[in-house]
């Protein structure tokens, strides 16, 4: 009976890495995973309107001002009105770029700044030269939820 061959250090390492000989080294195999969980999209807040759940459960994203049951005749009119309002708002944001805008905010705050841009969910406005009672802020973000109204000369 020939004595067993001695393993080299490299062969030992290969045995460990391949997961073979688990009884001797007592190494359990980790459970396989198909992929990692998907992370957040940096560009949006999610809630994909194309998902099956959204299409099934969300008829309109905001409840109609009319009664809680969707009136088939009123809905297209209301949607048209909403899209006109939305388009006007977006065009307003576009024409405001680089102009001086006056913001009326909560807590009796009135400030003036040069409008830069809005983020996609209209949560923040990027402005420059924000004039505040305690000085001029070169660059600032204004929280849209704090804004009551804003005016500018087009």
């Amino acid at each position: 009976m020939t004595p067993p061959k001695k393993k080299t250090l490299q062969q030992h390492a290969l045995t460990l890495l391949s997961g073979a000989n688990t009884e001797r080294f007592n190494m359990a195999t980790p459970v396989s995973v198909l992929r990692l969980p998907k992370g957040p999209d940096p560009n949006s807040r999610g809630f994909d309107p194309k998902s099956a759940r959204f299409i099934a459960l969300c008829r309109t994203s905001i409840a109609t001002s009319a009664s809680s049951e969707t009136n088939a005749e009123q809905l297209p009119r209301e949607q048209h009105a909403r899209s006109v309002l939305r388009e006007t708002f977006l065009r307003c944001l576009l024409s405001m770029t680089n102009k001086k805008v006056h913001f009326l905010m909560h807590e009796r705050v009135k400030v003036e700044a040069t409008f830069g841009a809005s983020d996609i969910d209209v949560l923040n406005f990027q402005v420059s030269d924000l004039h505040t009672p305690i000085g001029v802020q070169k660059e600032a973000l204004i929280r849209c939820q704090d804004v009551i109204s804003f005016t500018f000369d087009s």
Partner: protein
Amino acid sequence: MAMRQTPLTCSGHTRPVVDLAFSGITPYGYFLISACKDGKPMLRQGDTGDWIGTFLGHKGAVWGATLNTDATKAATAAADFTAKVWDAVSGDEVLTLAHKHIVKTVNFTQDSTCLLTGGNDKLLRLYDLINPEAAPQEIAGHTSAIKKALWCNNDKQILSAADDKTIRLWDRSSMEEVKQLKFDTSVSSMEYLADGEILVITYGKTIGFYNALSLDLIKTVDAPAPINSASLHPDKDFFVAGGEDFKLYKFDYGTKEELESYKGHFGPVHCVRFSPDGELYASGSEDGTLRLWQTAVGKTYGLWKCVLPEDLGVENSEQLYTSPPEIKA
């Protein structure tokens, strides 16, 4: 052949994850919501951890988050002194409920018509979601900030845990205190299982199990480290716990024996919950991540795949798929 647990890491939060909750099982699966100190609670698909959306609007750390049974509504409790109700399908904010101090906990009734809130103003509030403009009913009694409040006994009663080291049971119709449990130390978490009326409480290194109706003690189990949260499996055969030593522990509920412990988080575990089908449990940590763990390690479920020994040689390339390096919060 022994299999080693591969936790699935859900990244995205930038600050500690302090609370998490699962929905019930819906036709679209089940869902998970996480509360985070970064103020941006997230909704995820429960069985995979895939991100679905982020609820944007809170102006402070979110301390509590919950989903209703069919995951159509979400509620969050925040340090900005508000609780918010959200449409969990569109992500839109539906209601903002102003409070007089930090709100810590929110809970829907089974029919989603009433929201229970509690926080640092020591009051429990019941909001009628059908008439949200109406003033909420208030229940006073706790002498310190309320940490957790839950509906129980078919929404006829309320359980609350506060920093005054008590857990109190209240009757919804009379708004009166029915019973009280006193502890020597602060209660760190509370979970309620309607099926079996069991209350799971953690304090110090102990996990206590109580009858939710009578508040009688069923049993206590001690863990090796201070525990922040524990969850009992729906079949009541296991429970899991996590806390200050960053590990997740799995115990046999019947024998109280510690079965497994898992390392993985880079910070204390703040919350742990079993999924509604019991196939996995999720943990939230100071390290800003959520991790999903299999109850039956090696089983094919969600993103986990059972690989049989004869396939090992063929699938070597995908077998040892490890998570990318962790980014510390």
